[in-house]
């Protein structure tokens, strides 16, 4: 037996166990590689673990992330209030509109029910009117309450915006009328200039439940603040009344005497405009 063969036999005797161990490791690595590289095999093994962890995570969210999310949202809303309001405004507006429509319907039904029970000349008249017009008594009652009312009237010099006279059937209020007259004139001038409508005049400003009726004359204009439903019929009547007032009461002398003008204005418009 040669030296080479002897060495080989000795190696076999000494390393058989290690060989077997190395082979088994290689086999295991092969199996793992198979599992890792084949998605189906891997998901079969890993999915249950991930599912368990996810479920645990979801259950823990309110405790762990909840305060952070709430704090972040609060901070974001605080920092961008205008943007939030801007985004919410149309949504809230629609909701309010729907709510008001619903409440108005309920109110109308409620009024109809109550007026049916009560008897008075006024109710009898309204009932007859409702039958003739083919509308419900409730709707008519609501229309009565939404009747247009004069809140304030200003007579303003056209170019300068200086207040010549004013009248309010309600309390005097705290607004500075001279500044209102100036600002109204500035708005009016801006609109008339900006849209290049030739000699056309701004005649109406609407804001929420109020309407500013503007009637133009040569050197001055009349601005009447109206609450309630500003209907075409009311507009016609108001226009006629202002025209009557201008025709019968306003002279160039009056325009220079603010105190006298205010007295005349008050006298003319003291009665309710129908």
């Amino acid at each position, binding site marked *: 037996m040669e030296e080479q063969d002897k060495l080989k036999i000795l190696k076999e005797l000494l390393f058989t166990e290690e060989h077997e161990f190395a082979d088994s490791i290689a086999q295991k690595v092969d199996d793992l590689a198979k599992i890792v590289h084949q998605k189906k095999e891997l998901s079969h093994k890993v999915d249950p673990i991930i599912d368990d962890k996810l479920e645990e995570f979801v259950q823990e969210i309110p405790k762990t992330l909840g305060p952070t999310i709430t704090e972040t949202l609060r901070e974001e809303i605080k920092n961008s209030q205008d943007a939030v309001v801007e985004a919410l405004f149309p949504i809230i507006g629609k909701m309010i509109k729907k709510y008001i429509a619903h409440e108005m319907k309920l109110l109308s039904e409620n009024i109809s029910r109550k007026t049916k029970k009560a008897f008075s000349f006024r109710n009898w008249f309204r009932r007859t009117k409702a039958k003739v017009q083919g509308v419900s008594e409730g709707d008519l009652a609501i229309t009565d309450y939404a009747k247009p009312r004069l809140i304030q009237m200003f007579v303003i010099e*056209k*170019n*300068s915006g200086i207040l010549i006279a004013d009248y309010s059937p309600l309390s005097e209020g705290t607004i500075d009328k001279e500044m209102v007259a100036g600002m109204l004139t*500035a708005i009016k001038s801006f609109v*008339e200039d900006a849209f290049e409508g030739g000699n056309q005049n701004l005649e109406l400003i609407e804001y929420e439940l109020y309407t500013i009726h503007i009637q133009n004359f040569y050197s001055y204009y009349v601005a009447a603040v109206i609450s309630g439903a500003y209907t075409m019929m009311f507009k016609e009547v108001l226009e006629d009344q202002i025209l009557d007032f201008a025709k019968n009461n306003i002279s160039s002398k009056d325009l220079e005497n603010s105190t006298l003008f205010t007295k005349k204005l008050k006298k003319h418009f003291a009665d309710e405009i129908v």
Partner: protein
Amino acid sequence: MKLSKKVVLLGHFGVGKTSLFRRFMDNEFSEEYKVTLGVQIKKKLIQLPDGRELSMIIWDTEGHSISIEDTRKSYLLGSHAFIYVFDLTREETYATLTKDLEYLKENYIKVPARVLGNKLDLVNEKEIRRQLTEKNIPFDGLTSAKTNKNVESFFLDLAEEITK
């Protein structure tokens, strides 16, 4: 009898019209510069030496960039006085002054226009007076809205003038 007069502040952007307006109206001043868009209006009651009370309605208009002709004409109509403000530290704000005053004189014949150099606190008064005279720049007063120098007296003099 009630006495009301409309006074319009005119001039280039950033000359301090709003600062003068705020200083005279509310005795306030802010270093923060905010461009006026359109116009803002305020009223000040002034006791005249003869005992009458004047409602001075001041229109603080947005500044023009090139010429006064850019100013919205409807804001100028019916005025009882104009105050043309320029910045003593920026020559370009009084470069068109003579031309602008001519324009006002031609288009608003009876309306007095007074010229005011503002930001006096940033220049040497003696030196700036010399320079303006040398350049033939007409002015009726030099003020500082920041330190309140000459502001009140300028407006009160104007009030007397337009109620004569």
